[in-house]
């Protein structure tokens, strides 16, 4: 039974519990019955002794011995009772083995069990001394009662108890299975609900209203998992729409320009112009596709390979040098402070820092100073670039790293980066076991990323 049904398991467990309960009760009843039967047996023997005792103590007739024998014969007619009488006077002796019986019972209080007669049946026996009177010497009177009917009662109780207990347990199992099935009905209902949820009905959730307490939490977590998936799905959908949109403009230009060019006879120079313009659009498409592929690689969890141990300040310096002429044109200065050693794939690091610097230059006013900082703490190196800027509302800061997100909606197609620059920074950080962050405080916007340092979580060197 590899896949166990809850109802079946509950039924089995309940019947096991019931069986244990029945066994306990059965044992107690059995003990009680046995004790009562033992007392009853004692009383029977006592009664038998009592029957003769009165006669022996109070009888004064001379033929008392014969009358006692008659009485014994009458009392033992059914074979269930036996008497023994012992004295030194043979006239006052009765029953075989009377001397032994008298002696045996002398040592016990109450009754004892003994095998009696040729067939060795179990008898409960007890004896009593009777003081001498005018008509007889000192006597020992012993009475025995066949206990077979009593043990029979106990035995038949035991024999009946076992099947009754098993039957009861089975009954409990069957009933609790039914009950569990009824109790689990909400689960079946949930599963029916869940079956109705699909890509077209993403808004649907499991119904919360009439649920048992135990399922409440489960349904809550399940629904919030669905919420998260829904959000991711929606983001993916809008992302696809964004990609389509980004590709649409260059495609439209390409088609339109080519059609216009072909509508009339054109000279070679004119056609050359069109081809060159087309090539620019195609380059734009290529860049978007390559960047998308790059992001997809990072998203698949690809890590930076070909990592080398470098001084981040040195590499950052090289990137700033790359920007020298651009900075000069923009009238912006960059200072670099701090340093850390880290394992990085340098081309990826340059790319990330380039995108950060480009972002900063784009948003910094003329004459501004851009600060590039490197620090290391807690197993990671941090690289950040700050530039003076209008404050960005805190809720928008994380969105800076979204693909195609542009803080400045008025420049939707500024050809630099296609709105993928910071998304690529995030991807590169992830490829080095790091993350990105953005702050906006005191007129400075700081955007940066971290890199896991070798001791903490070394990127694989390959």
């Amino acid at each position, binding site marked *: 039974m590899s896949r166990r049904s809850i109802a079946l398991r509950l039924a089995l467990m309940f019947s096991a519990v019931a069986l244990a309960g029945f066994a306990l009760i059965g044992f107690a009843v059995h003990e009680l019955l046995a004790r009562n039967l033992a007392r009853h047996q004692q009383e029977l023997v006592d009664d038998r002794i009592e029957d003769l005792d009165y006669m022996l103590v109070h009888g004064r007739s001379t033929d008392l011995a014969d009358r006692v024998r008659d009485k014994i014969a009458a009392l033992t007619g059914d074979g269930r009772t036996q008497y023994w009488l012992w004295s030194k006077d043979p006239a006052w002796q009765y029953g075989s083995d009377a001397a032994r019986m008298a002696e045996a019972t002398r040592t016990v209080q109450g009754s004892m069990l003994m095998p009696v007669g040729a067939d060795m049946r179990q008898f409960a026996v007890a004896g009593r001394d009777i003081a001498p009177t005018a008509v007889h010497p000192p006597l020992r009177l012993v009475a025995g009662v066949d206990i077979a009917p009593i043990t029979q009662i106990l035995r038949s109780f035991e024999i009946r108890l076992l099947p009754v207990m098993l039957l009861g347990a089975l009954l409990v199992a069957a009933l609790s299975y039914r009950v569990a099935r009824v109790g689990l009905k909400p689960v079946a209902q949930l599963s029916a609900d869940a079956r109705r949820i699909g890509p077209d009905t993403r808004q649907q959730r499991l119904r919360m209203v009439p649920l048992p307490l135990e399922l409440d939490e489960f349904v809550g977590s399940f629904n919030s998992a669905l919420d998260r998936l829904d959000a991711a799905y929606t983001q993916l959908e809008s992302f696809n729409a964004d990609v389509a949109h980004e590709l649409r403009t260059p495609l439209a230009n390409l088609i339109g320009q080519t059609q216009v060019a072909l509508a009339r006879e054109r000279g070679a120079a004119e056609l050359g112009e069109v081809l*060159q*313009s*087309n*090539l*620019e659009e*195609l*380059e734009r*498409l*290529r*860049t978007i*596709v*390559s960047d998308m*592929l*790059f992001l997809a*690689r990072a998203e*698949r969890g*690809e890590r930076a*390979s070909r990592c080398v141990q470098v001084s981040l300040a040195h590499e950052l310096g*090289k*990137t700033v*040098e*790359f*920007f*020298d*002429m*651009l900075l000069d*044109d923009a009238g912006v200065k960059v200072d670099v402070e701090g340093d850390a050693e880290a394992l990085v794939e*340098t*081309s*990826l690091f*340059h*790319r990330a820092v*380039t995108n950060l610097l*480009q972002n900063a230059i784009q948003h910094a006013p003329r004459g501004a100073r851009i600060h590039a900082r490197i620090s290391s703490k807690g197993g990671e190196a941090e690289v950040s670039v700050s530039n003076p800027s209008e404050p960005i509302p805190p809720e928008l800061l994380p969105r800076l790293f979204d693909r195609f997100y542009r803080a400045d909606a008025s420049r939707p197609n500024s*050809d*630099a*980066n*296609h709105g993928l*620059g910071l998304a690529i920074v995030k991807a590169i950080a992830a490829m080095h076991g790091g993350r990105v962050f953005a702050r906006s405080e005191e007129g400075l916007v700081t955007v940066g990323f971290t890199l896991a340092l070798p001791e903490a979580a070394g990127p694989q060197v*390959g």
Partner: protein
Amino acid sequence: VKVLIIEDERKTADYLRQGLTEQGCSVDVAHDGIDGQHLAVHHDHDVIVLDAMLPGLDGFELLRSLRAVKNTPVIMLTARDGVEDRVRGLRAGADDYLIKPFSFVELFARLQALTRRGRRQEATLLRVGPLHVDLISRRVVRENQRIDLTAKEFALLELLARRQGEILSKTTIAELVWDMHFDSTTNVVEVAIRRLRAKMDTPFAMPLLHTIRGMGYVLEEREGAHPVRP
């Protein structure tokens, strides 16, 4: 330069053949792995352009069997830029790889880099028409006029002069002048070219530094070229 193109996509193979032929290469083309392997093994080429996904025999297999007999330089073209493909290609013995979509200028630059290896002549004085670039004294003279350049401007001019007549993409320039090995979307190279041009071209009658829109830049003396405004 003898080039073998092994590529099943007809349009790609056709434009590569045309482009490389026009650049002065002699080109063989194979459209599947079996033909490709035959040509690669039985003929001598200076360089092979090999698509990774081929009918008949896939690019990696072909490369492995080729490497067993020959060391012809190979540039792999792959459509997927997963590390696995890259590593697989390089491990199988590829000398370089390009990820589709790649630009023709880029491919040509890599082809030249592979065929130039080991036979670069180290000139100390480069001439492009009236322009003289002295690599030792780091002096630039045009029509008897000394031109002052910053270090980076000089490095840029040196690269263009060494490869005169060859179109250099922005990516190649960024790689060789600034050591930035990625597809940059910045306009750093444009700005640098503009500055260089302002110093060594604009003051003179004949432009030497030409922009090839959508492709890159080339330094060469052209008959009947018109002055270009920056």
